[in-house]
C-alpha cells in the first residue's frame, strides 16, 4: 500500500476516533475546547510552536514536488515527441531503414511519425561574433517527416518545419544562441572532427516543441544541409513518435516498442539497430533520482520535526504542570487516568490540527523560496547540464500528507506526555504540592513493555547489522535505566543513562568501516540523535554543578541566578529536551561548517596543479597556441571523447549525461600525471594506482566520482561498460573519467577531441591567459576557461545543498528559540506565585528579568556545546571515510555567526516574557490563580 495513503488513512482513523470520543464523552470535549479557547493568545503561541514540524515537512514536500515536476517535465521537453530511438551505438546506417519502417503496414497507423536523423557532438563558431561553443549537439532532421515531431517556433514569431530552409541554413537553440550571442543571419562554422562547414543562421528556436530537443545547446539542420560534414554516410538515428501527449504517448510507445524491434529485425541491415524507449527511460530515471533525493529531504525535515517534538513535549509538560491541580480535582471526582489522557489528547487534537493547517502557508512559501534559491544551482554541473526550466509545485496530496504527518507527530507526542503527566498523587496535586518521593510500582503493561524491549534489544545486538545493533544497545540502556529507577538517585540515573548512550553512539560511529554503505548513513543518523540526547540528558541532570561557580559571585547575583538554576536542575527532562532540540540542529550546522569547507579545500588545492582547461571536443589535434607558450609552466593534452548517454552509479541511473572520457597514453600514465586525493585501500601508493590503470582497462580515475572502489557504468556501442574508480583526482579540471587508451577503446565510435590542462607560469594572470588562448583557438571550435570557474560551478551545487540544510536547520533553530520563548511565557504563568513571593522577599524586577533570561541562555549554551561537541567528531568520522588524509577545515566564521544569531534570537524571544514577569505586581502575583 502507498505509504502516503497509509498515513492519511491513519490520520483519518485517529481523528475520527477522537471525534467519536468527543461525542461519547461531552464533558471531556467541553473541557478540552474551553481550555483551548480560554486564553486565545497563549493558545496561539502553543499552535505557533506546534506548527514548526508540519511547516518543515511541507516545505520539503514542496521542494520535492517542484524538483519532481521540473525533472520529469525536463525529460518530456528534452525528448519532445521522440518516444523511441533506433540506433546502432552511434554508427551510421542506411536511411532507407527509416523509410521502410515508416512504410511498415503493421506500424503505419500505430506510429504518429518516423524520422531519419543524425545526432553528433560538434563545436560551433559564430564567425560574426567571434565566439565559439564546444559540445553542441548537431541535430539533423528530415523536414518532410518533421510534422509529427512538432513545428519549430522561432524567436521572431515565425514557425517552420525546416522545409523552407535554404541548403546552407540552419536553426539553433536559444541556449546556443545565448552562448554565442548569435543573431539570425550570422555565419556559423560547424566543426565535426576533421571536417567543417560554414552555414548561415536562419533563426533561433524557442525552447519548446522540437526547439527544446535535448535541452542543451543544439544546432538543428535539415539532413541535406549536413552533407559537407557527414557526406554520404547516411544517418545514425531513427526517431519514432507515438500518438498522443505526455504519459499516454509514452505508454503507447511502450506498447509499440516490441513491434518496432520485430519490424527492424525483418529489415535487411536492421538487425544491429537497438530500439530504446528513450523518453520513458529518461522519465523513469528522473523519477527514481528525485525519489532518492526526496528521501534525503524528508530525512532532513524529520530532523526538524524531531526537534519540534522536543518542543511539543516541553509544551505538553508545561501545560500539564499548569493544570495539575485542576486535573487532580477531576481525578478526585472520579475521572480515571484514561479519561485524563483522553482529555489531554482531545485538547492536543485541536492544537495539532490547527497547527498543521496553519503551517501550510508558511511551509509552502518557504518551500517555494528554497526551490527558487536552489534548483538551478543544484542541477548545474561542470559540463553542459540540461537547462531544465524550474517548475513550482504545491500539490493537494503533499498538503494532506504534511498535515497528517505533522498532526500525528504532535498528537503522538502529546499522548506520550499526557500518559506521563496523568500519573499523580491526587492529594498533593490538588494543593499544587510536589509529588512525594518514593518508588512507583510498575504496571503489568510497563513490565511487559520492558520485557519485550529487553528481548528485542538483545536480539538486535546479537543478530543485527551495525544500525540495528546501535538501536539494540540504545534499547538496553533504556531498559537498564528503567530497572534501576528508585534504586539510585534520579540525577545519577540520568547521568549514567546519558553517558552510556553517548559512549555507545560514539563506539558505533567509530566502528563504521565503509562510509558509502547504506548502513553507515543509518548509523550516522541514529548515532547523532542518540549522542545528542544522551549528552543533553547528562548535561541537564548535572546543571547543578553550575551552582559551584555561583559561590564565587556576589550575593545579589547569586540570588538572581539560583532560582533559574534550581528550575533547570529540578526538571532534567525539560532542560534536557530543550538542550537536545538545540543540539540536534547545531550538529548539522557544525557538520556543514566542516564537511563543505574540507571537501572544497581538498579540491581547491587541485587548482595549484593546473588552472586552465581548453576543450576541443571534435578536434583531435589541438595544441596550445605559440603566443601563450611563455605564460604556461606545464600542460597535458589528452584525447577526449564526448560521451553523452546513460550513466549508472551508486544505485542511480541518469539517462542523458555528458561525461568527457580522457584517454591517457602509457607514457602519460608513467608520469603520474595528476595528484590524487584518495585511492582504493588495496593500492599502497599513488604510483601503484597509475601502474594499475596502465594494466587494467576497467580502472579509471576521476574528480567527478569521488568514492574509490565505486563502479560507474556507461553504455557503449556494444553495450554497458563498467569502470571501477581506483582513485580520486584532486583537480576538478579533469571533470569526467580518465583511463588508459585500452579503457576508452569501447567508445571508439565517438568523435575524438582534445582536452588540454595547463598551469600558468608564475606571474601570469590565469584569467587573461585563458582569454588569450580562447581567442586563439575559438576558430577551431575550442573553448578555454579557468578551472576556478569550473570549481565554482561544481562547488556551487554543493554549497546549494549546504544552504538548503542550513535554511532548514534555521527552522529547526527557530523551533529551539521559540521553544525557549514559549517556555519562558509559560513559566510566567506557572510560576506566578513564586515570582510574587520572590518580589515580596525583595527581589528587584531586574533580578526577576535577569533570572528568566539567564535560564534560557543557559539552555541555549548547553545546546550549542552539545551540538558542536557531537558535530565535530561526527564530521571527522565522515571525512576520514570519504577523504582520508584530508586536512580538516572549519568555517569558523559562519559557525560563530550562527551561534551569535542564536543568542540574539533567544534574547529577543525571552525578553518580553521576562519583562512581563519582572513587572508582575507582587500582591497580584501572590493571589491564587483563577
Amino acid at each position, binding site marked *: 500500500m502507498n505509504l502516503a495513503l497509509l498515513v492519511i488513512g491513519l490520520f483519518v482513523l485517529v481523528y475520527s476516533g477522537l471525534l467519536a470520543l468527543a461525542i461519547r464523552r461531552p464533558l471531556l470535549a467541553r473541557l478540552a475546547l*474551553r481550555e483551548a479557547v480560554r486564553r486565545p493568545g497563549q493558545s496561539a503561541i502553543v499552535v505557533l510552536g506546534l506548527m514548526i514540524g508540519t511547516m518543515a515537512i511541507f516545505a520539503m514536500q514542496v521542494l520535492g514536488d517542484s524538483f519532481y515536476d521540473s525533472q520529469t517535465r525536463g525529460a518530456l521537453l528534452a525528448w519532445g515527441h521522440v518516444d523511441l530511438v533506433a540506433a546502432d551505438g552511434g554508427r551510421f546506417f542506411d536511411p532507407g531503414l527509416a523509410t521502410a519502417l515508416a512504410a511498415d503496414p503493421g506500424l503505419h497507423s500505430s506510429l504518429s511519425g518516423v524520422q531519419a536523423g543524425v545526432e553528433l557532438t560538434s563545436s560551433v563558431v559564430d564567425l560574426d561574433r567571434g565566439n565559439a561553443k564546444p559540445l553542441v549537439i548537431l541535430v539533423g532532421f528530415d523536414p518532410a517527416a518533421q510534422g509529427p515531431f512538432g513545428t519549430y517556433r522561432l524567436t521572431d514569431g515565425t514557425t517552420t518545419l525546416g522545409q523552407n530552409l535554404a541548403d546552407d541554413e540552419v536553426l539553433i537553440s536559444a541556449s546556443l544562441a545565448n552562448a554565442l550571442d548569435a543573431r539570425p543571419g550570422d555565419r556559423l562554422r560547424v566543426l565535426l572532427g576533421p571536417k567543417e562547414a560554414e552555414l548561415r543562421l536562419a533563426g533561433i528556436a524557442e525552447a519548446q516543441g522540437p526547439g527544446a530537443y535535448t535541452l542543451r545547446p543544439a544546432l538543428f539542420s535539415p539532413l541535406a544541409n549536413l552533407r559537407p560534414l557527414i557526406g554520404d554516410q547516411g544517418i545514425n538515428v531513427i526517431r519514432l513518435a507515438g500518438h498522443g501527449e505526455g504519459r499516454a504517448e509514452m505508454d503507447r510507445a511502450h506498447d509499440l516498442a516490441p513491434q518496432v524491434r520485430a519490424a527492424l529485425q525483418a529489415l535487411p541491415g536492421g538487425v544491429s539497430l537497438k530500439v530504446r524507449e528513450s523518453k520513458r527511460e529518461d522519465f523513469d530515471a528522473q523519477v527514481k533520482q528525485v525519489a532518492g533525493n526526496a528521501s534525503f529531504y524528508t530525512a532532513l525535515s524529520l530532523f526538524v520535526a524531531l526537534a519540534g517534538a522536543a518542543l511539543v513535549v516541553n509544551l505538553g509538560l508545561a501545560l500539564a504542570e499548569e493544570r495539575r491541580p485542576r486535573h487532580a480535582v477531576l481525578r478526585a*471526582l472520579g*475521572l480515571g*487516568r484514561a479519561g485524563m489522557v483522553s482529555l489531554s489528547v482531545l485538547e492536543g487534537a485541536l492544537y495539532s490540527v490547527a497547527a498543521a493547517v496553519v503551517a501550510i502557508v508558511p511551509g509552502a512559501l518557504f518551500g517555494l523560496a528554497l526551490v527558487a534559491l536552489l534548483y538551478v544551482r543544484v542541477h548545474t554541473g561542470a559540463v553542459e547540464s540540461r537547462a531544465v526550466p524550474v517548475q513550482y509545485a504545491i500539490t493537494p496530496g503533499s498538503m494532506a500528507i504534511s498535515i497528517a504527518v505533522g498532526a500525528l507527530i504532535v498528537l503522538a507526542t502529546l499522548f506520550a506526555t499526557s500518559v506521563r503527566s496523568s500519573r499523580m498523587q*491526587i492529594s498533593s496535586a490538588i494543593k499544587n504540592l510536589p509529588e512525594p518521593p518514593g518508588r512507583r510500582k510498575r504496571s503489568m503493561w510497563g513490565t511487559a513493555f520492558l520485557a519485550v524491549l529487553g528481548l528485542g534489544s538483545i536480539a538486535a545486538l546479537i543478530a543485527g547489522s551495525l544500525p540495528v545493533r546501535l538501536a539494540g544497545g540504545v534499547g538496553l540502556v533504556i531498559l537498564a535505566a528503567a530497572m534501576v529507577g528508585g534504586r539510585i538517585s534520579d540525577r545519577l540515573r540520568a547521568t549514567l543513562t546519558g553517558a552510556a548512550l553517548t559512549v555507545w553512539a560514539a563506539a558505533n560511529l567509530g566502528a563504521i568501516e565503509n562510509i558509502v554503505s547504506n548502513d553507515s548513513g543509518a548509523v550516522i543518523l541514529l548515532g547523532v540523535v542518540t549522542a545528542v540526547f544522551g549528552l543533553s540528558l547528562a548535561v541537564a541532570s548535572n546543571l547543578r554543578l553550575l551552582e559551584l561557580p555561583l559561590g564565587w559571585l556576589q550575593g545579589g547575583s547569586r540570588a538572581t541566578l539560583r532560582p533559574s538554576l534550581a528550575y533547570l536542575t529540578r526538571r532534567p527532562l525539560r532542560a534536557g529536551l530543550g538542550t537536545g532540540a538545540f543540539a540536534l540542529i547545531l550538529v548539522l550546522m557544525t557538520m556543514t561548517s566542516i564537511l563543505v569547507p574540507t571537501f572544497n579545500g581538498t579540491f581547491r588545492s587541485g587548482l595549484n596543479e593546473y588552472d586552465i582547461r581548453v576543450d576541443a571536443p571534435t578536434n583531435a589535434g589541438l595544441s596550445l597556441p605559440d603566443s601563450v607558450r611563455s605564460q604556461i609552466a606545464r600542460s597535458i593534452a589528452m584525447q577526449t571523447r564526448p560521451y553523452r548517454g546513460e550513466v549508472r552509479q551508486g544505485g542511480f541511473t541518469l539517462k542523458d549525461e555528458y561525461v568527457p572520457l580522457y584517454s591517457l597514453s602509457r607514457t602519460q600514465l608513467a608520469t603520474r600525471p595528476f595528484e590524487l586525493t584518495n585511492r582504493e585501500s588495496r593500492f599502497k601508493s599513488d604510483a601503484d594506482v597509475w601502474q594499475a590503470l596502465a594494466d587494467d582497462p576497467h580502472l579509471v580515475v576521476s574528480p567527478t566520482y569521488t568514492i574509490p572502489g565505486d563502479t560507474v557504468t556507461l553504455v557503449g556501442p556494444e553495450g554497458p561498460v563498467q569502470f571501477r574508480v581506483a582513485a580520486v583526482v584532486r583537480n576538478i579540471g579533469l571533470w569526467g573519467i580518465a583511463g588508459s587508451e585500452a579503457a576508452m577503446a569501447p567508445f571508439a565510435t565517438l568523435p575524438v577531441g582534445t582536452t588540454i590542462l595547463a598551469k600558468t607560469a608564475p606571474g601570469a594572470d590565469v584569467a587573461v591567459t585563458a582569454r588569450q588562448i580562447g581567442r586563439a583557438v575559438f576558430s577551431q571550435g575550442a573553448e578555454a576557461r579557468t578551472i576556478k570557474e569550473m570549481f565554482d560551478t561544481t562547488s556551487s551545487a554543493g554549497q546549494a545543498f549546504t544552504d538548503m540544510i542550513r535554511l532548514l536547520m534555521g527552522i529547526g533553530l527557530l523551533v529551539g528559540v521559540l521553544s525557549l520563548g514559549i517556555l519562558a511565557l509559560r513559566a510566567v504563568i506557572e510560576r506566578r506565585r513564586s515570582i510574587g513571593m520572590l518580589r515580596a522577599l525583595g527581589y528587584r524586577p531586574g533580578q526577576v528579568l535577569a533570572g528568566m533570561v539567564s535560564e534560557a541562555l543557559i539552555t541555549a549554551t548547553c545546546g550549542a556545546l552539545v551540538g558542536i561537541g557531537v558535530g565535530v567528531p561526527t564530521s571527522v568520522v565522515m571525512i576520514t571515510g570519504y577523504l582520508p588524509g584530508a586536512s580538516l577545515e572549519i568555517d569558523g566564521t559562519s559557525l560563530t555567526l550562527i551561534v551569535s544569531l542564536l543568542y540574539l534570537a533567544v534574547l529577543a524571544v525571552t525578553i518580553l516574557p521576562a519583562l512581563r514577569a519582572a513587572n508582575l505586581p507582587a500582591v497580584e502575583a501572590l493571589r491564587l490563580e*483563577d
Partner: protein
Amino acid sequence: MDGAIVQAVRLRKVYRGANEVEALRGIDIEVERGEMIAIVGPSGSGKTTLLNCLSGLDAFDGGKVVVDGQDLSAMSDRARTAYRRDHMGFVFQAFNLLPVLSAVENVEIPLLLQNVSSRDSRRRALEMLEALGLAHRANHRPDQLSGGEQQRVAVARALVHKPAVVWADEPTGNLDTEVTQVIVELLVRMNKDGQTIVLVTHNPQVAERARRTLHMRDGRIEVASTERARAVR
C-alpha cells in the same frame, strides 16, 4: 444511626524520602452512617492524610479501610477511581472549581462522569444550585463568583450525585467568619438530611458543629470522640 459506613483498622501511612515520616500510626476509626465528624489537630498531625486515605485519594501502607461495605485496600487505582466517582463527594479548601466551566457546569461534572444524560445532569445540577441559593449564578464562571459562592458551588458539586460520604478538607479555610458560618450551616443542614460528612478543620467553631470530634497528634487519634453535636443541634 444506621451502622458504620466508614471503618478503618490499624491504618498506616508512611511518606518515604530522604527522611521517612510515619504520618498515620495504626489508626482505628468508625464513622456512622448519617454522622458528621470533625477531625482536628495541629499542623502535621496527619488529619488531611487520614482524610485522603479514608476517601481513597491516597494509597496507604498498612491496615484496612472499608467504605459502605467496600474494602478500599483491595481495590486497584481504577476501581478506587470508580468508587470515588459513584459514592463520594469532595469539598476542598481552595474550592478547586474548574475555571473554564460555569457554576452549573462544574456542579454537573460528577453526574456526567457517571454517564447520566446531559439533560438530567443539567436539571439536577440546577436543582442543587437552587437548593443552595445559587440558581441566579448558575451561568457565572468561578472568577465571577465570591469566595463564599465558589465554596457553595463546590458543596453543590460534592452533593449533586448523592454520595455516601462527603469529605471536606478545611472547607472554610479560605473564607471569612461570616461566609464560614454560611458554609457550616449548609453542611449541617445537609447532615440533618442524612448526609454523612467527614471534615478536617482547624477552626474550633466549625468543629463544634460536628456530632463528634477526633483530635489527632503525631499520626494518632489522641482524644476519644466526644458526642455533643446532637445537643447543639
